[in-house]
Structures are given as C-alpha cells and as structure tokens.
C-alpha cells in the first residue's frame, strides 16, 4: 500500500488523541481532566482500529511468521535479569556481592536479548528459504531483473499480486 491518505488521517487522529489524553493527565484532579482522559483514550482507540483496518493493504512483506511465544519468552528473560539485580540489592549488603549479583543479572538479560530473541526471529527467516517458496516467489519477478525503469517506480504496487 505504501503511504496513503488513510495513514495520514489515522496518524492525525493518533496525535489528537494523545494530546487530549495528556491534557487529561495534566489536570487529572479536575472533572475536566477526567473527561479529557476518557475522550483522548477513545480517540486513540479509534486510531488503533483505523490502523488495524488498513494494515492488510500493505501487501506481502519479505518477513515470514515466526514463533510468537519464543519472542515474548526472550523479552521475559531480559526482564528477569533486571529482577535478579534488584533482588541482589535487597539481599546482599556488601559492594562486592552486589557487583557479582548485578553481573549475573546482566548475564541473564544478555541471554534473553542476544540468544533467545535472535533465535526466535531467525528460526523462519525469509533468507533461509529457497527462491521458489512463496515469500521469495512474491518478489523474484522483480528481483531477477537487471534494472528497474522509472515507470515501475511510480506505478501502483500491483506486481506482488500478480506474482502470487
């Protein structure tokens, strides 16, 4: 789909909703503040629904679906490392002990960020697939060409549909 009028409209709605919501936060103690908070949240929700509605129009991306639970597990492990560090601050009183526990916490977080998450995202990476499989076939008609001429650059994005 690329950039469109709908995207611009819903982004505008998102900005208005966010601004009104923050106005509500600023004066939360007053009745007007609470009203602004509710109105802002409603506008943000409308913007989110709008974004969801136009999302399928983008067309096929190169990225293939990958295991969602693994991704959230990786983020959870990163968070767990921080909790280990915080626990060390409470349970250990010496500087040396706190340094050791903090290093342990950092190690746990790094494990989540540098091992679990990349493994989750790369498990079904599109670059591992043969060109004949669906995702590669989608753009191979364009990719195998030597050059792209200017008319193709300005044309509506229809080649993906034809390739499928």
């Amino acid at each position, binding site marked *: *789909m*690329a*950039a469109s009028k709908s*995207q611009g*409209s*819903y*982004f*505008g*709605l998102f900005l*208005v909703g*966010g*601004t*009104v919501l*923050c*106005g509500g*936060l*600023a*004066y939360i103690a007053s009745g007007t503040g609470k009203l602004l908070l509710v109105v802002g949240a409603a506008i943000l929700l409308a913007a989110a629904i709008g*974004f*969801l509605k136009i*999302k399928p129009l983008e*067309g096929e*991306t*190169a*990225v293939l679906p990958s295991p969602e639970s693994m991704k959230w597990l990786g*983020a*959870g492990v*990163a*968070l767990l490392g921080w*909790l280990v*560090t915080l626990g060390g*601050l409470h349970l250990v009183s010496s*500087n040396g002990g*706190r*340094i050791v526990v*903090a*290093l342990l*916490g*950092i190690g746990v*977080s790094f494990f989540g*960020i540098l091992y679990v*998450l990349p493994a989750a*995202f790369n498990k079904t*990476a599109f*670059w*591992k*697939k*043969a060109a004949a499989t669906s995702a590669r076939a*989608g*753009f191979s008609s*364009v*990719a*195998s060409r*030597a*050059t*792209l001429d200017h008319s193709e*650059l*300005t044309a509506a*994005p229809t080649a*993906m549909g034809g390739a499928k």
Partner: protein
Amino acid sequence: MKTWLRSHFLALCILALGLTAGGMAYAETAAAPAQPAAAPAPVPPATAELREAAAKAPTPADLAKGDPGGTITGSIADVTVTDAKAGPTLADAGNQIGQNKIAINFVWTLICGFLVMFMQAGFAMVESGLTRVKNANHTYMMNFFVYGCGLLAYWVLGFAIQMGGAAGNANLGGLYPLASEHTISLFGKTWGIFGESGYFLAGHAYDVGVMVIFLFQMVFMDTALTIVTGACAERWKFITFSVTSVIMGALTYPLFANWAWGGGWLAQMGTNLGLGKGYADFAGSGVVHSVGGLTALAVCLIVGPRIGKYNRDGSANPIIGHDISAVLIGCFILAFGWFGFNPGSTLGASSNGNLRIATVAVATMLAGCTGTFGSILYMWITKGKPDASMSGNGLLAGLVAITAPSGFVSAPNAAIIGLVAGVLVCVSVYFVENVLKVDDPVGAISVHCANGLWGVLAVGLFADGTSNYGGSWNGVSGSVTGLFYGDAGQLAAQLVGISTLLGVVFTLSFAINMVLEYVIGHRVSAETELNGLDIPEMGQLGYPEFVFRPETALKAA
C-alpha cells in the same frame, strides 16, 4: 458523510487542539500567584563606596567618544538599581551578581542545546549516506520528522515524566516549579518513579528556568530517537516510524531519564543504599545512547533484515551506502555538536565547579580522536584497508563512550575509554551482523548501544574523584569515584544502571513495538522495498536524475 469527514478532518483536529489548549489557559489564569509586597531595604556600610564608584563611572558623554579598547563599556552605571535617585546599593550589586551567574548558565546551556539540535543534521547525513540512493529521501525524511514527533511528544508528556520532580538545580535558579515526583516506598526507603509536573509547559512551569532545561533535555531526547531511524532504514514503514517515535519521546526515553537525571530511583541509590554517588551518567551514554541503541536493536529484530542482506547459508552481503562524503561530513557535524552535548551537561559555566567545562570538552575531543584511531587501526590491520565508514563509526563510538564519564575523568583516561570504544565498535558490528543476524545498515546498535553501555561501565572504573559540582552528586557529598580510584560502590551503581537498561528499557521498547507490529506493521511490502522507499513512501526520489544499478546481491541470493 465519510467524504465530509475526510475533507474536514484537519479542521476537526485543529478544533480539538484548540479546545485542549483553551482549557489549560483557563486553568493557568485561575492559578496566577499573588505579587509579593516590597520591603524597604537596609542600607549597608558599603553603600557609600558603591555610590562613589557610580559617580566616577563613565558618563554617556565619555561613551559617545567611542571605546575602541573596550575598557570603559560596562561599569557600575550599568547595574540595575531599585531607586535611581538613591543610587546603587549593596543589595542591587548582589542581585546583579546573582542574575549574572544565572544568565551565564542560561546562555551556556541554551547555546549548548542549540549545538545538540544541529546534531540532527549530522545524523541525517550519516544515516542517509550509508543507505542506498533509492531510499535517500525516506531516510532523510525520517531524520527530519523525528525532530517534530519527538518534540511534540516531549512537550505534551515526556518532559513532565522526566523532569517533573527535578527541582533543586542551583545552576538554573532552582527549577522550583518542577517539584512533583511520584514515589513509592520499598524496603523502608522512598524511591522516585516518574515526574508529575510540567505538562505542556503550562501552569507554574511557565518559568524561564524550566524553559532552559526543557530545550536542553528535549534535544537530548531527540538524539536518542534518531538513533533508531538509522538501524531500521531501507525497510521501515514511515507511519510506524512516526507512531513509535512519538511513543518513545513521550514514554520510554523520559522514564529512564527520570530515573537517572530527574531524581528517580537510580540516582537515589547513593542516598538510599550507599552505592557511591548513585547511578552517574554525566551526559547520557546510558540515558541517550543506550536507550536509543537498545530500542534500535528491539525494532531491528522485529522488522527483520533487508532483502539481499543474507544468503541462504547465513553469510552476509555488504550493502554499500551511496555517499561516503555525506557520512564523513555528518560525523564532523556530530563531533562539533558533541561539544554541546558533554560540556553543556554541566548546565552552567559559572560557579558550582562548572569551570570543569574545559576538562569535559578536552576529554570529549580526545576520546573521539582515540576512537577513530582504534577503529582505523583495527580495520587496517585485520582487513587491510582503513575503512571510511568504520572510521566514522569509530569517531562516534569514542564520543558515545566518553559521554557518561566526560565530567568525571582525566584526559589520559578519556583517551583509553575512546580507544577501547573504537575497537569495540568494529567487533560489535561483526557480532551483530554475523552472529545475531541482525541487519543494521549504519552500525547504530554497535555505536550507540554497545558503546553506550561501555561508557556507563567506564564511569564505575575510571572516575577519579576530582570533579566538584557544588560539592555533591545526586545528593551525596563528595565526587564521583570509580573502582580504580577506590569506590567499588560506584561500580555497583553503574552495573545496576546497565541491568536496568537491558531489563527494563529493552523489554519496554520491545513490547511497545511488538504491539505496533500487530496493529500497524513495521515493514514495507517486498515490492516497495525492492523498488526503493522513496516513491512509494515519500512520493518522490531523493535524486531524480540518478540511474539505478542492478540489485546484484539479490540475483546471487
């Protein structure tokens, strides 16, 4: 009806904003403070001497003859007096001295803020130069629009979260309107979590000191935001970039910045737990660069590598940027702006140990220099050529790494920190690209995340305890002192800061952007990506008269 709504959408948006602003203006009017009553000032013994000096001051007739040597312009006659007939008093002179101190600090901080703002141009040139010509307009536009997205978000919400409880800065007149920090009690101690005053810079935040700190902190925040645009260049939907930039400017960045700089719990580790002077991050290796770099890593994982970056066996293809001259000029602009970033973080040039700005500036300069040497020598020795783009990244890595320690370390230590950064950035680029399989076109994760974390750690090692910013740091008497100079507690505080960056900032950024992936989607379509993002996303090419070359990497894949 739908057509009417679409055509009047802009008018409705303006109406909604107007109503919000009107409501706040009404609230401000109702809360206007009463003027204090003037009291008669006592006449001190020195008043006669001041009046005698005023009588001898150059007259307008003297000044009318010109002052080529600059010896008579500016005298006691220029001191603002409360009673013109009585002449200057000691109180007038004292008030003038106090206002001069604050004025010097205001001007220093504002000018440094202007320098940091100009760094946006440097980032735009570096990032765009390292990407392909077919995406030049899109990359430049992300760097351009991130400034507006961040500023708006920071004005309406981010500043209040970050600095809403930051009252007490003597350099800028006290910042007393910012005195509301939300706290929690845990393990018998009180911990700051987020600020609660300063929304829209309205109400009591309509204050000259608050405006200075807003401008300075805002440009820092925008620096963090623009780091992400480089890492995700060439495949990121403009709409998703816009939304995530607003959220980062409003929430992710200000939250950690509050913990470190706004009187939050990381800064309180010194007073509450006796860990050194609490988390110390002079100019933002952690607050700005690690937050930006970790967010870049989170979004890069979600958005995935560019088409053609990796072969089926997992080996990486180099995708060469289109303009190395823009890259290196951009690096120089960034190095210039860094003289606002680090020395400006004293938030003043007058009193409270602020003359250390000279040491801070030289430490910044040296670390950039040794960072460049580190990367050039590493590439030259291991790859055979002094690679230009890695040289630029080496300069930036040195500057990123010295950002946190710059206010606390000596010149030789600054040089060591920069040298390590220069090598680290090269090793990290290889690791991110070939081990993690994360595609970062400009090396932003290595420059800002890896070296930002190194900078935070370096404070805990190299801070030499000679700085004296008003006699205390984070409310703890004495100077920030690292492990090599005898304080292991400071290293522990720095490690807690690093753990928080990895565990909280990364996870929060990842979660927010995963939600955006479900709602909007981060990545452009494969066809848009292959054609280049300039036409589909921005409507025009960056360089309309250039001829595109074949995508050789794709044919190989």
